[in-house]
C-alpha cells in the first residue's frame, strides 16, 4: 500500500529527520519527497510505500500524529488512492 504523508506547520530544525526516522524504523520506504517553505510555513509531501511495514497503518498514523503534536505540526498519512481518484479522470 502506498500513502502520502503531509506535514504542514512552522519551519524548525529536524522535521525531515524526525519523520524519516519513524518511517525507517518501521521499514517504510520513502519513494519521493517534495518540500517548500513559504514565509515561515513549512509544507512537505512524501510518497511512502508500506508494503514491508512492520506495524499497522493505524499505528504509523498515530505515531506521526503524536510527533506532530510534539513539534506543533500537522502531520497526516493518507492512502494515495484518495488523491488519485479525486483529481484524475
Amino acid at each position, binding site marked *: 500500500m502506498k500513502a*502520502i504523508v*503531509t506535514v*504542514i506547520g512552522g519551519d524548525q530544525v529536524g522535521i525531515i529527520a524526525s519523520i524519516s526516522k519513524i518511517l525507517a524504523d518501521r521499514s517504510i520506504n520513502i519513494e519521493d519527497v*517534495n518540500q*517548500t517553505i513559504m514565509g515561515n510555513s513549512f*509544507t512537505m*509531501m512524501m*510518497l511512502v510505500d508500506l508494503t514491508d511495514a512492520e506495524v499497522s*497503518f*493505524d499505528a504509523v*498514523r498515530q505515531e506521526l500524529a503524536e510527533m506532530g503534536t510534539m513539534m506543533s505540526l500537522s502531520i*497526516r*498519512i*493518507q*492512502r*494515495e*488512492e*484518495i*488523491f*488519485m*481518484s*479525486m*483529481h484524475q479522470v
Partner: protein
Amino acid sequence: MNNQQILETIRMVEEEKLDIRTVTMGINLLDCSDSDDETARKRAYAKIVDKAEKLVETADAIAREFGIPIINKRISVTPIALVAQASKTPDFVKWAEMLDKAAKKVGVNFIGGFTALVQKGMTPGDLALIESLPVALLKTDRVCSSVNVGDTRSGINMDAVRLLGSTILGIAEHTKEADSIGCAKFVVFCNAVEDNPFMAGAFHGPGEGDVIINVGVSGPGVVKSALEKVKGESFEAVCEIIKKTAFKITRAGELIGKTAAERLGVDFGVLDLSLAPTPEIGDSVARILEEIGVDVCGGHGTTAALALLNDAVKKGGIMASSHVGGLSGAFIPVSEDEGMIAAAVSGELTLDKLEAMTCVCSVGLDMIAIPGSTPSETISAMIADEAAIGMINHKTTAVRIIPVIGKGVGEMAHFGGLLGYAPIMPTHKSSSARLIARGGRIPAPVHSFKN
C-alpha cells in the same frame, strides 16, 4: 502527484467540511418472515447483527486510512410491513423495538426501513404498521420510518394521505416532551427510491440484493468555497465549477464505498451524491444559493439557483461514477441548515417558497416545524401537494414536517445534534378538510402531452 491537488484535498476536509455523510448497509429481511411473529423478529435481529457486526469498525478504519471522516454508519432494511405481515398477529411496536436493539448492538446511529409502501392501496399489515407509529417512535431512539403514498405510475393514495395527517399529529403528541422529535424520524414519500442511504427515508427496496453498501457523500461547504472563486462570472462558470467539485466529491465517496463493500464482503450499491447540510456554519445549502446571487435564501431567484445547483451536482457526479443513485441532488432541510434557519427566522423563506423549491431539488418539505395546533387535514393537504409535484414531475418528493405540540409561530423548536433547530413557520389558515375528506385515489397522470 501534484502538490496542489494534495493540499486541495486536505483543505476540503479540514476547512470546507468535506465528509462522507453516511455509509449505509442495506439488508434484505424477506427471508426472515415466519407465521410466528416472535420467530420472525428473532431471525431478523440475528441477520442484522450478523451482517452489520463489523460495519462501524470497518468504516472507521477506512476513514482513518483515507483521511476523510465518515460521519454516520447506518442500516436500512426491507420495508418491515412486507416482512412482518407474513406473521399471523404482527406486533409492529415490537418490530420497531427489535430494530432499535439491533441498531444499538452494532453501534449504528439510525436504522431505516420501518416502512410501508402504500401508493396504490393498503394491506392490513401496512395499516397496522402506520397505526403503530406514534408508540413505535416514542419507544425507540434510532428507528426511522417512511411511507410511500404515491408514484408516477400509480397515482396518489389519498386514503393513506388522510391517515398520515393524523398519524403525524399522533407522533408529535407522543413525543411532545422533546419538541415532537418523533416526527423528525418519519418521512412521507412520493416516488420513493429503493437505494437511498440517507435518513429518515432509507429502506432496502425489495428489488435490491441481499446485502449491499450504499454511500451518501456531502459537501455543501466545498461547493460554497469553490463558488467564491467565480464571483460575478456567468452561469456557465458557476455550472462548471459546481460540476468539477461534485466530480471530486463523488470520486472520494465511490472509493470509500467500494473499499467498505470489499472489506465487508458485500456488493457495492450506489453512491448518493446529495448536498446534505448540517446546522454548523460553513455546511449550508442556503449559503450556496446566496453565493450564486440571491441576497437571502427564499428571495426571488432562489428556485432558479437551486435548479442550477441540483442539476450541476448530478452532472458532475454522473461523470465521476457509474453507480450514482439514491436521491442525488441538493437537500433543503430547514432545521439542519444554518442558512435556511436564518432565512426562515428573517421571514424571507416561507413554506410556499420551500414548496416551489422542492419542484427542482432532490427531495421535499424537510425538517420544517409548524404549530402544534395545525389541523391534521392541513398536514394531509401539504403531503398531497408535495406528492402531486412528485407524481407529475417524475421525481421523488417527501414531507418530513414537525407539528411542535405546545409551540406556535415565532417560537423555536430544538431537536439537537444533526437535526438542528427551527423556527415554527406559519401555515395557511384556510381549511383543506373537504379536500381530504373525499378519500380514494388521485389517478396516475397521463404520460404524454407534456406541458
